[in-house]
């Protein structure tokens, strides 16, 4: 047997966890792009450095986004990945697939690209990993015929994503899938034709467990919640008692300590509950969210570049969410308009608000200040007053 060209990567074929190297080798068997990708990666493992150049601008007709350009810095050694662009394909909301749809996707990709994918990218797209410039348009055409479209990239609305929500989860307070799909369909233009100051991400979680990490990873987070009392089935509470130490595991870990358990009955002081989900998580048969359901809207979340990471901030404590989601979409548009008008290039929404002040933002988009927006009021005395609050100057 010939000596392996990829001795370092070969070591990652062993071990119990599924191996991406096996995947690459599988693809490499029939695809020269995949073969060169594997070999270039081996070189990176040897050199401890990436071998890609800064991406150039490539794309498909009519779109400004959806493709990430990429070129090898060693085309001499790896000519098949000289150009190796990825396509971001918008996933069906909730990442649900029928196998026929998936197979179609695979066929298109074997025809046009490396045969390698990421299922999925961390924004949520199905990532088709690498093809030549000249394949981009035809690949897109075939994707479109197969019923797929590209996701966002660049200074655009990025592919929104949602937790599985009502598709499978008993805790869904909103229809995360429908909201996400509705937004996705309503804003196709914003996804495909970058016209914002920078990227804009939306994620929808149907309860505050936030299984789609929306609070950390989106400029606009929509998270399901409820008003009113947690619904209790006392018999089911009792049924959990043999397996769960209700006092210790439930009551003592309730962040607001608003629960009392006497061995027979569970009492919740609902006015103190902050709807953290913990008790419900532990006893799904016994406890259910309150009956009046809606969403908390938060904005500003993002990764650390430029000014440090931000978690999203509450701007609407409670909004009913029912199709056609007019109130939500009006708000999104007011927010994006204001951001668009005021942001510098490459300034995310959260950074803009940080720069101009929540006060200015709230007034601009017409939202009232409420205490739910803050952990605590300001500590510094650097308070601005609006001109109309001041008596005509007399000094």
């Amino acid at each position, binding site marked *: 047997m010939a000596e392996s060209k990829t001795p*370092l990567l070969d070591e990652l074929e062993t*071990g119990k*966890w*599924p191996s*991406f190297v096996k995947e690459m080798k*599988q*693809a490499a068997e029939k695809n020269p792009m*995949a073969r060169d990708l594997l070999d270039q990666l081996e070189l990176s*493992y*040897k050199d401890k*450095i*990436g*071998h*890609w*150049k800064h991406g150039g601008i490539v794309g498909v007709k009519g779109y400004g986004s959806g493709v*990430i350009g*990429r070129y090898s810095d060693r085309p001499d050694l790896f000519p098949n990945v000289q150009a190796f662009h990825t396509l971001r*394909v918008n*996933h069906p909301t909730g*990442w*649900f*697939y*029928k*196998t026929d*749809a998936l197979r179609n996707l*695979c*066929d298109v*990709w074997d025809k046009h690209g490396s*045969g390698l994918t*990421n*299922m*999925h990218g*961390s924004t949520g797209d199905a990532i088709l990993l690498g093809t030549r410039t000249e394949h981009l348009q035809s690949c897109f*055409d075939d994707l*479109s015929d197969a*019923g*797929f*479209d590209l996701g966002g990239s660049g200074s655009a609305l990025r592919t929104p*994503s949602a937790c599985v929500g*009502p*598709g499978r989860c*008993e805790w869904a307070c909103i229809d995360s899938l429908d909201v996400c*799909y509705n937004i996705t369909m309503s804003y196709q233009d914003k996804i495909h034709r970058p016209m914002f100051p920078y990227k804009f991400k939306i994620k929808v979680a149907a309860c505050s*467990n936030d299984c789609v*990490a929306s*609070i*950390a990873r989106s400029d606009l987070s929509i998270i399901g919640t409820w008003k009113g009392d947690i619904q209790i089935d006392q018999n089911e509470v009792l049924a959990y008692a043999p397996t769960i130490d209700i006092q210790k*595991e439930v009551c003592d*870990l309730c*962040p607001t300590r608003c629960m009392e358990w006497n061995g027979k009955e569970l009492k919740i002081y609902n006015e103190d509950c902050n*709807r953290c989900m*913990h008790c419900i998580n532990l006893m*799904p048969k016994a406890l259910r969210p309150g009956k009046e359901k809606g969403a908390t809207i938060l904005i500003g979340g993002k*990764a*650390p*570049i430029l000014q*440090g*990471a931000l*978690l999203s901030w509450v701007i609407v404590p409670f909004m009913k969410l029912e199709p056609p989601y007019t109130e939500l979409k009006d708000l999104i548009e007011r927010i994006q308009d204001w951001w668009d008008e005021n942001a510098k290039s*490459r300034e995310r929404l959260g950074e803009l608000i940080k720069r101009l002040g929540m006060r200015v933002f709230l007034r601009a988009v017409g939202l009232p200040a409420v205490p739910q927006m803050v952990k605590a009021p300001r500590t510094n005395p650097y308070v601005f007053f609006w001109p109309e609050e001041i008596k005509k100057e007399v000094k």
Partner: protein
Amino acid sequence: MAKTDIGPPDYKTMLPPVIQRNYGKWRYHEILKPGVLMHIAESGEALYTIRAGSPRLISTDHIREICDMADKYCDGYLRFTSRHNIEFLLDDKDKVEPLIAELATRNYPVGGTGHAISNIVHTQGWVHCHTPATDASGPVKALMDEIYDYFVTATLPNHVRIALACCLNMCGAVHCSDIAILGIHRTVPIPDNARVPNVCEIPSTVASCPTGAIRGDMKNKTVTVNPEKCMYCGNCYTVCPAMPIADPENDGISIWVGGKVSNARSAPKFSKLAIPFLPNNPPRWPEVVDAVKNIIEVYANHARKHERVGEWIERVGWERFFTLTGIPFTDKHIDDFDMATETFRTSTQFKWG
């Protein structure tokens, strides 16, 4: 010409019939065993989910293999999770064990549910990106091989979410993870004065620097970097390709701990710096794997049931965390960015270690 702006396929057409019938009407769930969820609807119908691990970077043939199994056991329905696992969706209880058996023969790990370590959210690394300080798929594979048992069982105090991002852009959004693995550069980018004038816009390059380390050199149509102010974030390189920052000997990995996203019990929190630097040591990054395993073991031994990593650390104190893990505390752990003072201890309340 192909139709544009058709959007993704309608998810409703992808839902298994049992979901269509019980959409939004689920009553409760149980984890039957690691990787196997049973959701019961108000109608009484059951949905079974078998969760299998995935390397995320997969070939079309692999996808077809998954489809084959979904066709065989699930009437062709499956989904992926927000952490890139595969979920087979069944309504026929009798097919659960056969599917699991077939997954076993094909070496798919089944697990990642409950108090387990699920898949590692990660990024492109050397496979496809231009700014990585480390690889993504490699360290993930090396680590998952070693902590495999935590995926296929559910023995931890709570679930542990691990994520990896290969540079400070943090596409893996590692910033709120129980344990975050983050590629970092450690040397100053060197502007290529020959190329900067052609490929870069000076003002936006200057503006790209979070610490104001870059100055425009208008005369030579290039920029200079103040090495005292540069903390190697690489953002200038993102904006200006003529300022390469990668450095094989000094690039590597930092480890962050204690972040979370859910609102359960405690509010979402950022991960905090545990280990400022570990070397890139492909193909198996032993220093990184050992460091993460150590943190997991100490957590497993000391945290109380339901405590996430960050909740445990906050209860015992960061002083204790460093003592228990044996990780040295350095001046690099002390914030010196713009809101640093918020992290300084403004109290005599602390522990000795």
